[in-house]
């Protein structure tokens, strides 16, 4: 199976997005931004549809829309109560725009599915290169800002007092998530990029308490999920990779979630792990 170039491309691209997805997803979860992780890919759908209409590669449209939306989320959702609502509204607005773009474009239905469900068969060497370079950039960003990111995630008030530019860090993180989401759409499709962000990190946070260990573990889990998903999708013939990745992620998460709740409930009362500080 590894001899086919399209499978090599899918695995290479998939591994890259699994790593960046898991790393950025860890920070999203820790900051209680799960909903943003769900909304940004859907917002990207509109960008991809717009790009198709104009005749450029979907990934560039995704970049534009998701990065704009991450600024929008920062501006509109200043307090926690407003944040979910404003994310929901931005998301439905963007999806509506996507619908309009695709309606204007002929060959409607097939395009919708390619963007929403992903197309692993269509990944070229050039796509792999773009994904690889962007992955390096995202990983470099996280390493560079590792300490302020962690600090402002787990103790925003103290971080602010010590002079960490928390607002800037939060915006930068959302922009990185936007880039990650845009890269992931070709493999996972807009609907399920979310799985890649949340699935590995949700499990890893339950298993280890040290941030560095959680990050490493979620990256490993992410790569394993993608390889499993691509293998099963190829074996099944025509079924979407994203379905298999979502199923594997859920199958791993469920027992971990159920077992660790009992442990933490007996050991530490109902005090949440640091990964769950909102």
């Amino acid at each position, binding site marked *: 199976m590894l001899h086919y170039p399209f499978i090599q491309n899918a695995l290479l691209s998939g591994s890259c997005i699994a790593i960046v997805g898991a790393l950025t997803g860890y920070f999203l*979860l820790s900051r*209680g931004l*799960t*909903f943003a992780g*769900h909304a940004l890919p*859907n917002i990207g759908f509109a960008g991809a549809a717009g790009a198709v209409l104009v005749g450029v590669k979907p990934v560039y449209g995704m970049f534009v829309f998701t990065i704009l939306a991450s600024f929008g989320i920062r501006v*509109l959702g*200043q*307090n*926690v*109560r*407003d944040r*979910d*609502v*404003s*994310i*929901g*509204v*931005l998301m*439905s*607005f963007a*999806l*509506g*725009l996507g*619908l*309009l773009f695709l*309606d204007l474009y002929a060959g*409607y*239905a*097939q395009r919708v*599915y390619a963007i*929403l*469900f992903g197309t692993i068969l269509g990944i070229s060497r050039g796509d792999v290169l773009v994904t690889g370079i962007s992955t390096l950039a995202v990983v470099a960003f996280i390493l560079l800002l590792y300490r302020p990111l962690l600090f*402002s995630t787990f103790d*925003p*008030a103290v971080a*602010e007092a010590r002079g960490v530019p*928390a*607002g800037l*860090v939060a915006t930068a993180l959302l922009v990185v998530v936007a880039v990650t989401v845009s890269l992931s759409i070709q493999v996972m499709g807009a*609907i*399920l990029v*979310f*799985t890649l962000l*949340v*699935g590995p990190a*949700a499990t890893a946070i339950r298993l280890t308490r040290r941030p560095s260990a959680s990050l490493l573990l979620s990256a490993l889990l992410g790569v394993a999920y993608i390889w499993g998903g691509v293998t099963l999708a190829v074996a099944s013939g*025509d*079924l*979407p990779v*994203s*379905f*298999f*990745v*979502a*199923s594997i*992620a*859920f199958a791993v*998460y469920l027992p971990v*979630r159920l077992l660790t709740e009992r442990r933490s409930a007996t050991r530490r009362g109902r005090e949440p792990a640091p990964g769950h500080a909102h």
Partner: protein
Amino acid sequence: MHLLGSEIFQNAFLAGTVVALVAAPVGYFLVLRSHAFAGEALKDVGFAGATGAVLLGASSIFGMIVVSLLAALGLGVLSKRIRGRDVEVGMVLSFALGLGVLFLSIWTHSSAAHASAGVNILFGSMLSIGRSDLLVALGGSVVIVAALAVIFRPLLFASIDPAVAEARGVPTRLLSMAFMLILGLTTASTVLVVGVLLVAALLVAPAAAAVNLTRSPKAAILTATLISLGATWAGLALAFAPLGRHLPVGFTISALTAVAYLVSAALRRAGRRERRDLPPHPSREVGQTDVLPEGRVS
């Protein structure tokens, strides 16, 4: 204007109006209780139900209603306070979306006609609402309105000040469960008009705008209803009117309600700067202790 007399238009108009009328009050409580993400999860689970039902040859709204109600029960049982359970809700949502994608891709690969019907599930299909869908939506709406009328006062109390409500003996858990069921039924009906992907356009945006603009629950519900009705009727008008190019209904509705929300947020910000002494909308008095990234406590 022969279209206005056609059955297609009548069905679309009736279903759209009923759904807009129901989505606004339910959306108000959704916003008040900060359940935007839970609403999102419910409709994504319902999406798996809708596509599964279609695959089995049943009607998509029927599958959506059954599975949404089951998911609502699950959400209600599993978590007393859904607000702090984003990760759990997210994982269930992601698995449900995976199933929906699987069902839809199996179904759409079977024929080209199915491919465009699948788009209808995702983005709504006002122009293909049949009599049976309409009856289901009408029946569901009657149930929603009746249930909401029965629990309106205690639900409002429990949503605005859960701690005091519980202390006074209001059955908050039971209410929470009842509301999740109402929400499940509402999202399923809303999908008929705007599709799975655009539910928030009718459920969240009008209510969120109304909460920003008003100071009492009744005024908020009235405003939300006006916004959602206006957007739905405008969507229908632009889809049916002989303007040459027909805009997709889902686009018009989501664009108009989003604009309403953005304008309301801007107005509220401007108003807050001028009149700090006036009391805010009741929902803003609770659950505001989170420290912001900027270090301000709202």
